[in-house]
Structure formats: C-alpha cells, structure tokens
C-alpha cells in the first residue's frame, strides 16, 4: 500500500484520473470565463454547464475500470471499502444537511459538493484502513 504505483492497475488509474482532473480544471475555468464574458443562454448554456461534469464522469469511470483491472484482490477490496466509507459519509452529510435545509435557514449545500465530500471521506478513511490492515 505504501507504493501502490508499482501496481500496473493503480498506475493506470492514477494516470487516467490525473488526466481527467487536468481536463476538469481546463473545462471549469474555460466554462466560467465563457459564461462571465458572453452570458450564454438557452440550450448552449445547458450544454456548456454540463461540460465540466464530463471530466468528473471520466474520474468515476476510471475508478470502475481500476476495480475491474486490479488483479490484487486485497488492493481491490481495500479500494471498495474506501469507496463504501466515502459513500456512507456522503449519505450521512447530505441526509443531515438536507433535513436542516428543510426546517432551518442554513446555506444551501451545492450538489457539486457531493463529489468533493465523497473524496474527503475516502481520504479520512484511508489512514484508518491502512492502520487496520498494517
């Protein structure tokens, strides 16, 4: 687990997700600039708004591909466990926040935060699982 880049499946996953994240940055910056400069509306606005999400899809797909490609069962189960903890964290936060938003005036939780929250919970679970399986 210390140097998972020696693992070919993990290396491909890191390469794909880093590429997708780089594309995401380019897409989000260019979309924001385009909206700021040209104020598009109608179908073009919807199409442009969805563009950055494509890069996020790519990260999600690359995760799935990693799970399929990973030959090491232990590493695959570790990743699955991490993803499930991330999922649990997201569901807890969105349920609690959603409940608060319904009855109390708190800031709206942007749906894009779900993805970030997921990775935050994956990151939090990571050292605990490393300790568990040390």
């Amino acid at each position, binding site marked *: 687990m210390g140097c998972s880049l020696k693992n070919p499946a993990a290396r491909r996953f890191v390469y794909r997700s880093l590429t997708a994240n780089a594309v995401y940055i380019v897409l989000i910056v260019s979309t924001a600039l385009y909206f700021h400069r040209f104020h598009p509306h109608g179908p073009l*606005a919807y199409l442009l708004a969805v563009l950055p999400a494509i890069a996020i899809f790519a990260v999600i797909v690359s995760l799935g591909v990693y799970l399929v490609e990973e030959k090491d069962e232990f590493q695959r189960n570790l990743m699955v466990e991490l993803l499930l903890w991330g999922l649990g964290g997201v569901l807890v936060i969105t349920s609690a926040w959603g409940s608060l938003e319904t009855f*109390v005036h708190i800031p709206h939780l942007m749906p894009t935060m*779900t993805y970030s929250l997921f990775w935050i919970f994956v990151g939090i679970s990571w050292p605990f699982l490393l300790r568990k399986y040390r």
Partner: protein
Amino acid sequence: MKERKPNMGCLQKNPAIRRYLWRFIPTMVAYVVVLLFVEWFVHRYHPAGALLDGMAVLPAIPLIGVIAIIGIYLAEEKDEFLRNLQIQSMLWGLGAIMALTTVWGFLQIFTPIHRFQPFMTFPLFWCFQGIATGVLQRKYR
C-alpha cells in the same frame, strides 16, 4: 468452479438478511414517524433557535441508522456471493449518484435550474442501487 446463483426467492432464510430486515424495517418506520412528528411540531409550534436545530436534525438520525445497518449487514453477511452482489450494486448506485449530483450541480451554477435538495441524495442513491441490483440479478440468473 461451482456456479452460484443468488438465493433471491427466499432471502429471509439467510440469517444476515433476516437480521438486516429486522433492523431496517423498524428504522424506516421510525423515520416516517419522526419526519411526520417534526413536520407537525414545526408547523404547530414554530420553534426557533437550538430547539428548531435539534428538531431539524431528528429525521436524519434514522437515515444515518439505515446507513449503519447496511454496513452491519455487509460485515455480517457470510455468503461472499451475496455480499459482492450488494457491494457491486452499491458501487453502481454511488457512480450514478455522483454523476447526477455533478451534472445537476454544474447546471445549478450556470443555468436557472431548480435547486437540488440534499436530502434527495439518499432516496436517489437507493433508486439507482435498486436498478443496479435488478440488472445484476438478471446477469447472474
């Protein structure tokens, strides 16, 4: 390798699933009761401050309980095939909910689309997970 088929006709024969259902159903009933009570209380008494905050969080507690119950089921399930089926459908649900919230999020930032209510994440995830379970059951039939 012996071919496995999911025992989907009588899942309650499986002790882990039986325990899961015994935990899940009362928790969901508690959720409905708590939600209706909170709705009624807030509309009737218009609480404010800490009491309102506390009341607002109440319906989320059974939902958090459901998440824990699923986790307990995954830990308790001895049948590796059924556990993997559940995990696989949850991962499909996760991918779908991430995709949906991301698209909706960007539409919300840049276009005048309706706000996505965060509490919808939970039921939508289970919808996607349910669809994935159906597809996987067909696959492994």
